[in-house]
């Protein structure tokens, strides 16, 4: 049985396919170490993955079906069936967090995509100095998120923040349920818009020029050329950017921890924050594990979309 990935490689990369054939033909004539080279090369990665990823996930799956506290020995929790999941799904705190996470993710990703595409179009014009703008614009994305968020917290400060000083008021931006989430949204957009820009810029650079030239010869306006030629050709890149941003905004934590801690009145309580507080503040690890698994299932689904998108053409 051949996976889609393997057959894609054989079609697209004759050199690699050739290497694969050579390797399997030569395998029998080599020594033992050579025969097991591939296994030896992959084994350490496999072991690390099982230790830091496989085992913890299996353990938290088990934990989510028990009632357990940190003072007990491992595996002595009482089996409670789906009670933890039932508790979560009937807890307005959790369902609220679910709604806020989806709303925040949708609003942030939408703004990042639109602004990111706009900036990519600007940077794609052939003018001197574009490297400087590109470099300057990626700084918010590269710096430590917690530092970026704390910088914004100072700007939003009610009594000494520069925003309030400019407008001459004392608005408690991060302490009001109606403005706190908007402030977090601004920081999220500021931080990761250039992520979208970089992916789309790589996409724009890789597009063949002929369709655009043909469109302009046929008398298409620049707006039409953008809408009917550039955007459709850019679709795979737009999809990758959209899925990756959704996956990463869905797990947003640092900015919210630094700026509001989930407050005021749970107005910025996203799922990561909820799970964190449940596990490491209330020390209810069973409920935390259940919340973690619900998050896992949701992001696993997004990952499957991502993989399906990149499988179609292994690399864009």
């Amino acid at each position, binding site marked *: 049985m051949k*996976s889609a990935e393997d057959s894609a490689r054989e079609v697209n990369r004759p050199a690699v396919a050739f290497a694969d054939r050579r390797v399997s033909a030569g395998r029998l004539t080599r020594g033992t170490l050579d025969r097991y080279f*591939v296994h030896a090369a992959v084994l350490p990665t496999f072991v690390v993955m099982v230790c830091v990823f496989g085992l913890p996930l299996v353990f938290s799956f088990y934990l989510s079906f028990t009632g357990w506290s*940190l003072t007990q*020995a491992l595996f002595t929790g009482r089996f409670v069936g789906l009670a933890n999941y039932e508790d979560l799904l009937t807890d307005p705190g959790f369902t609220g967090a679910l709604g806020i996470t989806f709303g925040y993710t949708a609003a942030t990703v939408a703004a990042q995509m639109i602004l990111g595409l706009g900036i990519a179009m600007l940077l794609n014009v052939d003018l001197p100095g574009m490297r400087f*703008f590109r470099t300057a614009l990626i700084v918010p994305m590269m710096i430590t*998120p917690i530092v970026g968020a704390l910088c914004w917290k100072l700007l939003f400060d009610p009594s000494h923040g520069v925003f309030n000083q400019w407008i001459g008021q004392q608005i408690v931006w991060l302490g009001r349920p109606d403005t706190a989430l908007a402030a977090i949204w601004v920081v999220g957009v500021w931080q990761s818009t250039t992520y979208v820009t*970089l*992916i789309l810029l790589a996409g724009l650079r890789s597009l063949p020029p002929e369709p655009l030239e043909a469109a302009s010869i046929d008398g298409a306006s620049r707006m039409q050329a953008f809408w009917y030629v550039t955007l459709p050709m850019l679709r795979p890149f737009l999809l*990758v950017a959209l899925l990756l941003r959704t996956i990463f905004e869905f797990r947003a*934590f640092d900015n919210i921890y630094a700026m509001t801690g989930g407050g005021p009145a749970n107005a910025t309580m996203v799922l990561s924050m909820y799970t964190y507080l449940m596990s490491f503040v209330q020390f209810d690890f069973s409920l935390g594990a259940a919340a973690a698994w619900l998050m896992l299932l949701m992001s696993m689904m997004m990952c499957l979309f991502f993989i399906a998108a990149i499988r179609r053409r292994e690399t864009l």
Partner: protein
Amino acid sequence: MAAVVGSPRARRLEAVLIYVALTALTLAFLFPLVWVLGLSLKTRLQVFATPPLYLWWPTLENYAAVLTRADFGRAFLNTLIVSGSAVLLSLCVGAPAAYAFARFPFAGRSFLFFALLVMRMLPPIAVLVPMYVLFSKLGLATTRFSVVLAYTTFSLPLVVWIMRGYFETLPVELEESAWIDGASRFGTFVYILLPLARPGLVAASILCLQLAWNDFLFAAVLTNNATQTLPVLMAAFNAGDSGMDWGGLTASGMLVIVPVIVFSFAAQRHLVAGLSSGAVKG
């Protein structure tokens, strides 16, 4: 490449508009950092001045205060040790696997690659909850080692993707001639491929180092006062008993981000491949 079309006059006007738009965007994107850099160079009185001071004689007193704090130096060292070890571990473990992914078919290849992708993309908090429980029962919690292990959840996939992409660009003929000359698979990998892949190794290390340096969540849960990293210390400035320490917060924040800005400029060429999990080549 989108060329600017139209009459020379229209073309010039358009170039001007593009520059204006990009300058405005750059100013907006950099404003928070520039403003905080300014705050870090102000005395306590100047920070709280209303209306805000735009021109002042800069002072380095906040930086002097931060740099003489024992916990800042310790956190700096911890961050360096933890992120450096995570990068080294991921390179040693991940580079051979990346080579295998790039060149050889083997059972479970697709599954393993899928698992690596998922490992990088799942919410860290979901791995952290059970990890903390297991580590604390094993007596590993609050050690630097536990943080290094936790960091491999993102640095190992990154190393494998970037190095796989890099190995695929190397010509197969090199390995073939080494094999014909009697070199073992292992010898070929260590003595021929790794030296050739050095630029890829450097790029992967820088991107991993940046992610590890920036991590807050894993370190916040898995460290204590003695083993905490810089981002964790930063968050503590924010929540002191006497309210926020503006001088300490701003000066240490600027010091924390200087290395990452240097890393990111060093790895700019490889950023896109790293960001997109190898889905887009930069």
